[in-house]
């Protein structure tokens, strides 16, 4: 081999390396890195997700082909490498955040509303509207482990299932919208789940949350003023009603978007909860579960989310007030700041230690990053009709 052909081969090899690394740099995937500062942004209309880096404030890339992602949500594997995306169309997709691709995907029902991962990370449960019930899958293979039809009444009707969360003791807890029931499914014996049913919890439970210690499960009721509380340390005590009649008999306003309950609503010993059909956030003392205050806000609250340190609570609103976000001081119970991020604010996600919050602004096709101390927008990313934002820190949180 002569000197010049060796150089030529070397140059070709070098060019090949350049091409490969350029492709990797373009997508952002493929480089060795941790996942603990990553997250997924749902692009609801295009059936795609963006993998985002919360340190660099950039997108690693986009993963497409996830179906109908309206109202989609995500839970994470315990190594925080894989996100399980629950689509509206019954799709359950395991996404590899590091490789930037779909790892596995099934369509497990006709119409779904979110899911949960078990305490040990081996089971994925999906909450279904049609056919109403919960299906449980192996987290690694997505093979069906258990099918729990949400049947109720003498005619064996099936209820839509909402508010599905994981709880300690390898349990899943969920609510039956049409039946007014809460079920606890214990999967400690994986193939033989034990189900405990609580009936007559209240009319039309629409969503639920579990406190971050996994003790209290709280379902919001659409059909009446109040919430249903189950103490999972003492399930034998049954479900009790809290904040009963919070509307004080006044006519509720029409609701143009259902509120959402998430495990972020606790700030210290206080829970901050959206009032259905009212421009109010309800404040309840944990333990006594008595109302200790209510905060008048700009519109009907959809998300009421505490900054991780619990010092402030950020609130987003239903149509037509969904261009605004308000910040409540949890000590004085007053609104201390009002932001106008833009048209159709759909979701907010705090970084794990709370110094920043990411806000999806659907109709502006933007995700904005705010500094939570100064309330200044410090960054923006383009996204196609963004809705839910889910950071991998959820991998290590009970109920998320």
């Amino acid at each position, binding site marked *: 081999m002569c000197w010049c052909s060796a150089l030529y081969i070397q140059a070709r090899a070098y060019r090949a390396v350049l091409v490969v690394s350029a492709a990797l740099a373009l997508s952002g995937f493929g480089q060795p890195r941790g996942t603990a500062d990553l997250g997924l942004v749902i692009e609801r209309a295009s059936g795609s997700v963006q993998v985002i880096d919360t340190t660099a404030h950039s997108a690693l890339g986009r993963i497409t082909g996830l179906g109908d992602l309206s109202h989609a949500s995500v839970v994470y594997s315990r190594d925080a490498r894989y996100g399980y995306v629950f689509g509206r169309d019954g799709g359950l997709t395991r996404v590899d955040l590091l490789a930037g691709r779909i790892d596995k995907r099934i369509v497990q029902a006709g119409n779904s509303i979110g899911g949960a991962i078990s305490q040990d990370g081996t089971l994925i449960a999906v909450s279904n509207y049609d056919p109403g019930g919960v299906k449980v899958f192996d987290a690694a293979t997505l093979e069906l482990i258990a099918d729990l039809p949400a049947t109720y009444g003498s005619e064996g009707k099936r209820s839509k299932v909402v508010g599905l969360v994981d709880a300690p003791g390898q349990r899943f807890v969920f609510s039956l919208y049409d039946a007014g029931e809460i079920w606890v499914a214990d999967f400690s014996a994986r193939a033989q789940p034990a189900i405990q049913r609580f009936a007559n919890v209240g009319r039309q439970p629409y969503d639920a949350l579990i406190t971050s210690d996994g003790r209290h499960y709280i379902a919001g009721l659409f059909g009446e003023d109040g919430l249903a509380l189950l103490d999972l340390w003492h399930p034998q005590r049954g479900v009790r009603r809290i904040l009963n009649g919070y509307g004080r008999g006044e006519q509720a306003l*029409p609701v143009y978007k259902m509120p959402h309950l998430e495990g972020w609503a606790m700030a210290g010993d206080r829970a901050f909860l959206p009032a259905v059909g009212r421009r109010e956030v309800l404040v309840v003392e944990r333990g006594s579960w008595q109302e200790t205050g209510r905060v008048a806000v700009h519109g009907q609250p959809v998300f009421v989310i505490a900054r991780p340190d619990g010092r402030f609570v950020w609130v987003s609103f239903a149509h037509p007030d969904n261009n605004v976000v308000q910040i409540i001081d949890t000590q004085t119970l007053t609104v201390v700041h009002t932001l106008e991020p833009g048209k159709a604010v759909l979701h907010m996600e705090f970084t794990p230690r709370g110094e920043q919050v990411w806000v999806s602004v659907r109709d502006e096709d933007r995700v904005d990053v705010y500094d939570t101390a100064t309330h200044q927008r410090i960054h923006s990313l383009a996204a196609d009709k963004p809705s839910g934002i889910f950071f991998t820190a959820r991998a290590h949180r009970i109920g998320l």
Partner: protein
Amino acid sequence: MRRAERPLLMLFSLLLLAGAHAQEPAAARRDALVHLLRHDCGSCHGLTLAGGLGPPLTARALDGKPAAALEATILYGRPGTPMPPWHGMLSAAEVRWMVHVLKNGSVQ
């Protein structure tokens, strides 16, 4: 002064003419209504209108349901369910057009 009146008159008669065919909202408003159907109605009825907490609104699901009843549901809501009344935000003519496009399946 006189010259200025003529275009005004023409505009006025054009508006009258448009009023006579006012079943269909203007193009920009139609876009806004389709956006509303997909994204805001869609938050309960599904982005593809195949259903969610609320029933499906596909052409197939609405087949055989009288338009007047559907219009009344949108305008006045359905008590006992989360379906809210939209009068005040939407006019009767707009609702009529929305039911029309739902039934012919053009927003799915």
